């Protein structure tokens, strides 16, 4: 949670400085309260979904309003108009027929799209354009760090020294896959770990677990693999998080993206504080065979989109089932889109701008931006012109999802970029609302006002629960509860017979939740 919103949204906020004056910060331990004071951010998670190869945007979001132009410039691959998936409240665009899952998410207000995201002077090289997207550089600029790495470095500047620790016991970022993406390169190296979708470490144990033969070299390799496994200080927390989640929603079979996202859901629900996950799949470089001749509903692109959509849809439902959907924002991206016109091989060549999808409980439903104009004299080399800089998406995520102050957003992205209205304004204080909503019921006292004693009733969700009473100077008067409780409602009595009349504060802390309740002692 953010300090500002915490202070603003709790009526007790006014007394916090004095409480802090009377107590060492340490006394609060590893609490959300402490985090709110030390600037550590919320429990939001970002899932980056990389579609490698260059996804064809015009066949992903079909411009229904320009359908005849669309059909004209790509007659051999155009999706039939009556098969395009419609969207609630949006007649101008529709989705590829394979995106049924994402259509439903859109209609349930869990999906938004941003049209024509790119950068000036688009580079047609997979490698270069991917580097640009991952580092957040300009087209002509070389950056040695990734945008996510810079963000993580900003939040955890000492990593890896002193990590893991109480505040961040978990990996800062996890890549599902074998090889770390440059997106996680911070000025001090990679700020992420790689694990495979069955939650084995990749980067420190062998990605290629070819079985070892019963030979001297096989014996020694087995030994080395065992040591490598032990070496990873995060292995245990990941294992423990994964073990906590024994039941998950259904995911489509034979879908690598789904397998990766299933692992992410498990780790998020298992309680990892990891901020960023990255998953990915390839194959979007559809120069040929994007569709099958004669049936544009089939072919490679359709299969790829179906995998993505089915996986994201299952992931979203699973997050809801696991009760963590509010914590997660997803984003899909590719290194570029493809040409507006199709080629003669039932495919499309490397393009420029592309649509980006964001999904989660906190996105604003809609398609931001307009469908690309398709000129009457469209040429084979024409690209979708850029409407939004890709770094605007990053800056919006940093400010409106990771709740980073704007000046810090500029620091991470090395420049100021326009913010996009794609994330609900409540996302950065959703926690606070949640806490307060819960908090309203968490701790009460009766009678209030009271003369000598009052009964404090608190609701704990289990585990360690602390109830303390402070005076207005922040001095702790008494501790009424300080032990492990099973989930339930309990009462303790606050006897104030020796105390002067005035306001006292009952503060309850239970896990990451806390509330402060003002109580008024009056003369009898």
């Amino acid at each position, binding site marked *: 949670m953010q300090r500002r919103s915490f202070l603003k949204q709790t009526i007790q906020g006014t007394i916090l400085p004095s409480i802090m004056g009377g107590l060492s910060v340490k006394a609060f331990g590893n609490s959300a309260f402490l985090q709110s004071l030390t600037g550590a951010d919320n429990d939001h998670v970002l899932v980056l979904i*990389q579609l*490698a*190869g260059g996804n064809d945007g015009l066949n992903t979001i079909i411009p229904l309003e320009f359908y005849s132009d669309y059909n004209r410039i790509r007659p051999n691959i155009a999706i039939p108009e009556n098969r395009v998936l419609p969207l609630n409240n949006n007649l101008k665009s529709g989705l590829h027929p394979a995106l049924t899952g994402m259509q439903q998410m859109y209609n349930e207000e869990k999906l938004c799209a941003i049209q024509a995201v790119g950068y000036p002077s688009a580079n047609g*090289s*997979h*490698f*270069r354009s*991917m*580097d640009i997207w991952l580092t957040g550089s300009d087209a*002509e600029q*070389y950056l040695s760090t990734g945008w996510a790495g810079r963000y993580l470095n900003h939040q955890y500047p000492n990593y890896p020294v002193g990590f893991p620790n109480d505040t961040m016991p978990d990996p800062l970022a996890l890549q599902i*896959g*074998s*090889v770390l993406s*440059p997106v996680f390169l911070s000025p001090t*190296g990679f700020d992420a770990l790689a694990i*495979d979708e*069955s939650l*084995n470490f990749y*980067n*420190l*144990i*062998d*990605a*290629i*677990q*070819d*079985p*070892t*033969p*019963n*030979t*001297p*070299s096989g*014996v*020694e*390799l*087995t*030994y*080395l*693999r*065992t*040591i*490598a496994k*032990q*070496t990873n200080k995060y292995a245990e927390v990941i294992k423990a998080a994964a073990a906590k989640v024994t039941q998950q929603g259904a995911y489509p079979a034979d879908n*690598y*993206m789904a397998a990766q996202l299933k692992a992410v859901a498990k780790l998020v629900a298992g309680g990892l504080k990891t901020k960023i996950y990255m998953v*990915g*799949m*390839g*194959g979007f*470089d559809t120069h040929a*065979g994007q569709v099958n001749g004669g049936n544009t509903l089939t072919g*490679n692109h359709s*299969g*790829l989109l179906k*995998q993505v959509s089915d996986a994201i849809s299952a992931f979203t439902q699973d997050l809801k089932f696991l009760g963590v959907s509010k914590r997660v924002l997803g984003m899909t991206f590719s290194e570029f889109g493809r040409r507006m016109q199709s080629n003669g091989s039932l495919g499309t060549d490397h393009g420029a701008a592309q649509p980006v999808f964001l999904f989660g409980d906190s996105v604003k439903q809609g398609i931001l931006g307009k469908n690309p104009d398709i000129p009457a004299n469209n040429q084979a080399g024409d690209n979708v012109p850029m409407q939004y800089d890709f770094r605007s998406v990053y800056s919006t995520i940093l400010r409106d999802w990771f709740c980073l102050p704007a000046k810090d957003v500029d620091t991470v992205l090395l420049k100021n970029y326009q913010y996009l209205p794609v994330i609900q304004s409540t996302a950065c204080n959703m926690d606070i609302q949640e806490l307060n909503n819960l908090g309203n019921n968490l701790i009460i006292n009766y009678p209030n006002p009271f003369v000598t004693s009052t009964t404090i009733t608190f609701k704990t969700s289990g585990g360690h629960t602390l109830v303390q009473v402070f005076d207005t100077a922040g001095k702790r008067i008494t501790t009424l509860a300080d032990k492990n409780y099973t989930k339930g409602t309990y009462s303790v009595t606050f006897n104030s017979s020796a105390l002067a009349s005035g306001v006292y504060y009952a503060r309850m802390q239970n896990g990451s939740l806390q509330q402060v309740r003002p109580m008024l002692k009056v003369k009898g």
Partner: protein
Amino acid sequence: MNESLPTQAGISKKNKVSNVAIGLTPPADGLQEYTGAWDTAQIVHLLKRTLFGAKRGDIQYFKTRTMQQAVNELLQPASVPSTYPLNNYSVGGYTDPGGVALWQTWINNGITLADRELNEKRIDSFKTWWLGQALNPSRSIHEKMVVFWHNHFAIDTSVGTDVIKARFWYDHYLTLRQHALGNFKSMAKAITLDPAMLFFLNGASNVKGSPNENFARELQELYTVGKGPDSKYTEDDVKAAALVLTGHTVHPVNFTYFFDAGKHDATNKEFSAFYGNTIVTGYTGPAGASEIDALLDMIFLQEELTKHICRKIYRHFIYYKIDNDIEQTIITPLAVIFRNNNYNIQPVLATLFKSKHFYDMVYSSACIIKSPLDFVLDLCNEFNVVMPDGNDSEATYAVWESIQNEAREMQQELGAIPEVAGWYAYYQAPAFHELWVNSSTYTRRTIFTDRMVADGITKNNQTILIDPISFAGQFANPGDPTLLINDSLAILLRYPLSVSAKEFIKRSLLLSGQLQDYYWTNAWDAYKANPADAITKAIVSSRLQALYKYIMNLPEYHLC
């Protein structure tokens, strides 16, 4: 076209950790000369075992030779060091009390100075210089054999720095070096009379009337007959040998070895049945010094001595496991060769490195866990890490110190062996060289390779680092990602990766997830067409860095 990232298809992720007995046995004709293929795999195997790393230039060179020629050439002594240890310590306001200026050698200066601080600085200088000798690339096993014998006659220069002069340690190194490919019996005598060793194992104070048995014990237990089941020397043999050695000491004035006849026990020394009840006749006067030859003659008659040395050679250069098969088919016949060649070392090594057993790629390959020295030096040599101009002493020592420091952090330092029995990895059963690697040192190794392939390691403004473009650029066709990976792996990994694993590495790293090889080819060609362009260069170098980082992060990389 695949519909997902080239991922794990066909790759088993199940890795059953088992430590059952090794099923394969070596060929019964183990020491017979190898007559099979002589290609990159065999050459790299030979070079990694006999040199510090297999450089592509050396691989190409030995492809133009036969296996026999290659082994013979590798067993030729290298030329003697062309430099001396230099004053690298007159920095930060320190002045050498003997007057040796910075970057001048101290070896002929101030041996009589009783200055512990100075001596320790000079010892550090010597150790750094020694590391530099090991790093020095030559196509000879020589420096690796020096390390072998260093481990055999293990010493720790941090002991007795008030007495044991840096010059003694320098001479000790030269003694090891002089005999490393020569005659073991001569070496044993030279080490017995070596001033550094006389101090280190108290021979210098082993005198008539109050003998010190330290060296006499290690001479038998560690250096010659060993403590195998068939080595049955007795405590009385230790005492008798100590008496033989009385009087051999270091001259208190001119600091050289000398025989102090007055301190020599001139009685006859009787040995046990293990030594055939030999009596070493005692002599008075200068003649007493000759008893040492009788002692060594007696010890060297023991079959167990040759077996002990051959086992150590086998463990160092092939594998640590010596079962009955290995003992019968390799150790025993090798020991006969050693003896029949009057304890000359070269014939033993030649037989071993030319043997069918050595080139048994299933049994003998990729089964040694690199020592820290191997690990750091192999990397420097195999990647042709650019070293400073040898005339720039300051830069050269800075780099040597960097490398020395890395190996030290990984628990191995030349001149500082923690036990007289040698580094644990070479004798401590049952784990042997597995002891080099634990979760701490493994991490340290990974940090080292990660740094070397990223920003390098810097000391005194001297940076050593891997130039991935230069490494890739030496191959025949770096633009072909499959060939590039095969050529790279042929040098860097002795443990073979499966075809699907290599395909996976290619697509994930060189192709960044793309499916067509030409994306890498185009990137490489674009770089070659315009090497000065920062972005085309970065596209290539970042992927190569990722590739080599990945390979070096594989547990397989620790095997040679």
